[in-house]
């Protein structure tokens, strides 16, 4: 039952082959058995999940219910869930029970989804290995001695280990695509503004975007159908119709122009990963696509520009955690300033504090032009590189990460080593364009991700290319060893 696709579960529920209560109980039992090892979930509420499943079954019996009526799902613990604890992987929000649902949670609940629980993540989505979570690291189902990637590592590990059919995730600099790559999944970061950020705890508001984490492009498309759409509560939401992302999945790839940025096949790319990616690209060529080398000349500046813009926005966004209205407050504050400074020192982890400090510095008087304004100018150069590239090609393809999953502690000692994990993913966030990672091969038994980047609002095209690739290959069907 847990190997069924999202499409198959939806159809089986519609044919009454099993009930929502049955499949929910099945996943809850797997979570109970496997989560102590993987640590993919922070919060699971079996009673609430089963009650929601029974309501879905009752709705179906009355001939009601949404298109995903009774389908189990997991939400990254960055999406607010009304009445269910939402921690964002931080001690700061350890006791935070939101009084409202995020737009994404609301939409999926309206479609009929049953929430199994909330998935683990790097603290406030700042990390690429899930090692910064206050709730401990998530283990990669492919090798439990290795990281699942981050920040959406819990969502990725949960989907890969079949602890949920699909999950929601978010991506500010690669946090959907890199864990999808390291766990052998299909994860899509949509165009900035395509999925509402209402109720999605803010990290860097000009970069943050929610998206689907799934085992196949077809499932990612179906999930995105029920995540995307205009929302007046998000001031940067795109007011454009949402296409049916499943409709064009089978479109032929003949004549498709795929650009390979030479800056993304650089010295940082491990040879084994490069071989796997190039083999995957050759498969796309066999499917009719035409490959051509392109250049994104400012791409090497995306990491420096990002590490100004993201910390600057994070220092602003996280100033709301002051120990007054919700979240952590230190014991026995001497005065108001002591309460702020000590609550924040005690409840934020090292990486979060580092980024707040870098952002505060970059925005402070005398440094604003040299750092923040400079980074915003480079951001435009990077966006213009993409604009120019998409005049020549339809889709850009590259590795999603420089190497497969790494070992715990391997990159966490030095922040900059960890930051370079996202060298191929960050530019898409800066330019606001959609990008996905799909399984493209294995190196020493570990999954390798191929990244596909499209022009604004070209999610359907990316999903089409990934789906055709998955019709011709079986990398997305491989399962982690040891996860029965």
């Amino acid at each position: 039952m847990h190997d069924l696709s999202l499409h198959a579960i939806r159809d089986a529920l519609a044919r009454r082959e099993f009930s929502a209560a049955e499949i929910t109980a099945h996943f809850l039992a797997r979570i109970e058995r496997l989560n102590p090892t993987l640590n993919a979930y922070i919060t699971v509420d079996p009673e609430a999940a089963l009650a929601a499943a029974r309501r879905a079954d009752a709705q179906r019996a009355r001939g009601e219910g949404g298109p995903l009526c009774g389908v189990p799902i997991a939400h990254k613990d960055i999406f607010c869930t009304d009445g269910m604890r939402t921690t964002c992987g931080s001690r700061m929000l350890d006791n935070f029970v939101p009084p409202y649902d995020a737009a994404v949670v609301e939409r999926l609940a309206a479609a009929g989804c049953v929430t199994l629980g909330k998935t683990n993540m790097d603290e406030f989505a700042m990390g690429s290995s899930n090692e910064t979570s206050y709730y401990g690291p998530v283990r990669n189902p492919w090798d439990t001695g290795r990281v699942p990637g981050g920040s959406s590592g819990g969502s990725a590990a949960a989907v890969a280990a079949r602890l949920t059919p699909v999950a929601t995730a978010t991506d500010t600099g690669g946090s959907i695509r890199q864990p999808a790559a390291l766990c052998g999944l299909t994860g899509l970061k949509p165009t900035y503004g395509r999925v509402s950020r209402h109720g999605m705890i803010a990290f860097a508001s000009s970069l943050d975007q929610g998206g689907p984490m799934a085992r196949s492009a077809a499932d990612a498309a179906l999930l995105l159908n029920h995540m995307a759409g205009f929302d007046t509560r998000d001031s940067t939401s795109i007011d454009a119709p949402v296409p049916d992302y499943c409709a064009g999945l089978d479109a032929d790839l003949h004549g498709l122009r795929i650009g390979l940025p030479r800056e993304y096949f650089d010295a940082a790319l491990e040879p084994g990963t490069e071989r796997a990616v190039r083999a995957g690209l050759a498969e796309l060529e066999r499917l009719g696509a035409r490959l051509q080398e392109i250049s994104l000349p400012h791409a090497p500046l995306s990491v420096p520009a990002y590490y100004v813009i993201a910390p600057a926005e994070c220092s602003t966004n996280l100033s709301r955690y002051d120990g007054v209205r919700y979240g952590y407050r230190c014991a026995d504050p001497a005065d108001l300033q002591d309460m702020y400074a000590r609550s924040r020192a005690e409840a934020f982890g090292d990486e979060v504090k580092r980024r707040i400090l870098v952002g505060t510095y970059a925005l402070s008087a005398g440094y604003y032009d040299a750092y923040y304004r400079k980074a915003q100018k480079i951001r435009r150069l990077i966006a213009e590189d993409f604009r120019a590239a998409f005049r020549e090609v339809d889709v850009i393809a590259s590795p999603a990460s420089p190497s497969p999953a790494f070992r715990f502690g391997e990159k966490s000692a030095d922040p900059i080593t960890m930051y370079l994990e996202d060298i191929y993913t960050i530019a898409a966030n800066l330019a606001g364009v959609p990008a996905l990672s799909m399984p493209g091969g294995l190196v020493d038994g570990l999954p390798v991700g191929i990244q596909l980047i499209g022009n604004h609002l070209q999610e359907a095209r990316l999903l089409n290319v990934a789906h055709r690739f998955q019709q011709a290959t079986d990398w997305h069907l491989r399962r982690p060893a040891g996860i029965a």
Partner: protein
Amino acid sequence: MSISEQDLARVAELARIRVDDATVADVTRRIRDILAMIDQMQAVDTDHVLPMANPLDATQRLRDDEVTETDQRERFLAIAPATEEGLYLVPRVIE
């Protein structure tokens, strides 16, 4: 540009984050490394480039001034660390 321990102390105060004396040297060193990485930006001439704040160059949408939220005072106060008679409590500010 390099950051001194004195600069770090000032930034930590602005950010309302207590940094212990024991860790200030280590935190400063880490942040200095990050700023050195960021300084790669300075090699590019951006004199005639407009800063980009929104990746779609979108501007703020306006709406009519009408009530869209309902009063949920009790729910919001219920999750606060300390409240009294409908107010948020903080340490005394004015002696």
